[in-house]
């Protein structure tokens, strides 16, 4: 056993605890330790990804208990990819949070951040369904704290909604797990795979109920229509860096869908057709609703949130095909949509910091650093809408390609392509209102000055009092660092575009490993001391 497999869970837990116990009152120490912890976490994740790239499945038996009885952590290529993605995102966004001063707007930002990473990492690594529930709770309870970081009436209200919907999701998760346990007598994912495959077809009624309940839970996490209602208000009202980190949270739901419905309920079982038949229409409607939201949004945070909903829709269209090629395309799109959604939330936060913390798409005076932020927004919008040359284009092309064999391909293609147009128009409108209209205002002002008239006061609202729970550029410790962090996410998108072929080779290898479940199951159950043969 390689003990590094548990390091992504233990390391953030230790650092989070240390931050609470020892450096509660020292922001500088917190920043240093938390950033160092995230950097080491990224290092460990990269090492584990290298380690898993051999194609072997590694098992870590906690307490060295035998497999169906004890909890196992599993490291395979998929888990390794998600670890690297999450650790990279966490480090970059954390730098943004430090640079923008968000981390000192409330208590315990860095400790919560570390606990959040502990939960995310654990959810990617665990090989036990109940343990997955526990890690979901860990990441959720940390995310509740992060979501309301900084306070403010609207944010707390949105936070209450977020907590309630997730508590209901947890209740549903327990019901699903209870049903699965009652039918199969096990909660170890590899053991579940065997028990489900052995089950006679006429006895699967309860099993199918459990599988569908489980999918509802993951759909709540991933924000699939009709379970997406919590997302727009939550993301639009969360602090910018927190919303950016949440880009990986909806991917935890996607990861769980891919993991469960390739391993435990694979393609030849009765269950999966049911799941795929439900996922595809839900994904198409999610995409349409998300892009209409982008088109109609009156608030940049809401536009960004709806574009996150739309990207989940696109992603799940690919997942619902459940072929190796489609999962590979979905994973490529996962990397792209995580980075681009996070970048968009950071850019929205940068705009908010220069507009007294509000993001309504109405005429305001020109903001500081307007040119650079506009360029970043333009690039991100191109990536998210799926226009060439960035990775969104490649991702959407791949998804169109893998849906060709499907009977519904005309519907899928027209939905994806038409809604892309919505996104282009929506982002174009948002961008021109934020960055171009102010020039018009400037011109009117100059004209008025030249003619000796008093300044027009109509369209400019009175300056809001700077408030603690909104972001203000004056609070930023280092505006430069915020640009560097956002730039790093965009650089990730560019790299993903340039190295699309190696990235696709990697996601192909992941998909092949996912659909060949025998090594996974064997490494848990057969290759251990005193295994039953």
């Amino acid at each position, binding site marked *: 056993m390689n003990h590094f497999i548990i390091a992504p869970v233990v390391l953030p837990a230790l650092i989070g605890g240390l931050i609470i116990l020892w450096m509660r009152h020292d922001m500088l120490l917190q920043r240093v330790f938390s950033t160092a912890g995230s950097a080491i976490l990224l290092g460990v994740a990269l090492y584990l990804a290298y380690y898993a790239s051999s194609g072997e499945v590694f098992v870590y038996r906690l307490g060295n208990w035998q497999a169906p009885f004890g909890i196992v952590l599993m490291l395979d290529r998929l888990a390794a990819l998600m670890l690297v993605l999450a650790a990279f995102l966490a480090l970059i966004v954390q730098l943004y949070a430090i640079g923008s001063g968000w981390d000192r707007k409330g208590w315990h930002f860095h400790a919560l951040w570390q606990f959040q990473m502990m939960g995310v990492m654990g959810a990617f690594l665990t090989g036990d369904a*109940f343990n997955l529930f526990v890690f979901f709770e860990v990441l959720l309870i940390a995310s509740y704290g992060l979501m309301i970081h900084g306070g*403010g009436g609207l944010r707390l209200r949105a936070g209450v909604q977020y907590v309630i919907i997730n508590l209901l999701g*947890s209740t549903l998760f327990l019901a699903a797990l*209870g049903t699965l346990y009652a039918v199969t007598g096990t909660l170890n994912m590899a053991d579940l795979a065997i028990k489900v495959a052995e089950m006679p077809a006429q006895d699967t009624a309860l099993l199918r109920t459990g599988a569908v309940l489980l999918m509802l839970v993951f759909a709540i996490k991933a924000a699939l229509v009709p379970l997406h209602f919590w997302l727009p208000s939550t993301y*639009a009202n969360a602090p910018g860096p927190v919303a950016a980190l949440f880009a990986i949270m909806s991917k935890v739901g996607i990861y769980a869908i891919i993991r469960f419905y390739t391993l435990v309920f694979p393609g030849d079982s009765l269950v999966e057709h049911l799941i795929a038949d439900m996922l595809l229409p839900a994904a198409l409607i999610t995409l349409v609703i998300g892009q209409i939201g982008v088109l109609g949004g009156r608030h940049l945070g809401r536009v960004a949130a709806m574009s996150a909903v739309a990207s989940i829709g696109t992603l799940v269209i690919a997942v619902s095909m459940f072929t190796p090629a489609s999962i590979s395309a979905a994973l490529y799109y996962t990397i792209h949509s995580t980075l681009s959604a996070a970048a968009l939330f950071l850019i929205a936060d940068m705009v908010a910091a220069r507009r007294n913390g509000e993001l309504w798409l109405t005429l305001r005076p020109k903001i500081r650093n307007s040119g650079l932020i506009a360029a970043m927004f333009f690039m991100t919008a191109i990536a998210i809408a799926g226009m060439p040359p960035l990775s969104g284009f490649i991702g959407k092309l791949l998804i169109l390609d893998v849906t060709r064999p499907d009977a519904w391909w005309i519907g899928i293609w027209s939905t994806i392509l038409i809604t892309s147009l919505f996104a282009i128009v929506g982002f174009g409108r948002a961008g021109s209102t934020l960055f171009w209209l102010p020039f018009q205002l400037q011109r009117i002002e100059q004209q008025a000055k030249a003619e000796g008239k008093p300044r027009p006061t109509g369209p400019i609202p009175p300056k809001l009092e700077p408030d603690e729970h909104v972001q203000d550029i004056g609070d930023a410790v280092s505006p430069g660092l915020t640009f560097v962090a956002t730039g790093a996410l965009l650089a990730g998108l560019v790299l993903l575009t340039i190295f699309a072929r190696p990235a696709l080779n990697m996601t192909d290898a992941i998909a092949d490993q996912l659909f060949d479940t025998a090594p996974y199951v064997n490494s848990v159950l057969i290759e251990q001391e005193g295994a039953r043969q």
Partner: protein
Amino acid sequence: MEALVAIAIGAMTAAGIYLVLRLRTFPTVIGMTMLSYAINLFLVATGRLAIDKPPILHGHAPLTDYTDPLPQALTLTAIVISFGMTAVVVLLALGAYIEGGDDYIDMPDSDRRETGGDSE
């Protein structure tokens, strides 16, 4: 006994769902507590209902003479988590009430349209 447990779970779930669908935080919190009670009972029942049997294998007693200990452990975990989460949501609801002035759950208008400042 099966019927009794099933009716209890069903009644609590129904009451929980009804309360969760209210628009105010207090009934919603009560509703979620009801739901978690129902789920805890359900989890215990997933190990089959057995009376007067220890949750361990003991001595030379036949293998059938015990009850499954795992659901009980799961239930304990679920109780602890739902207890903690209820505390979190109560505090959060209190915060939202103090900041926002009412205990409604749905977002105020100022979340959807520009009202020229916060509605607080």
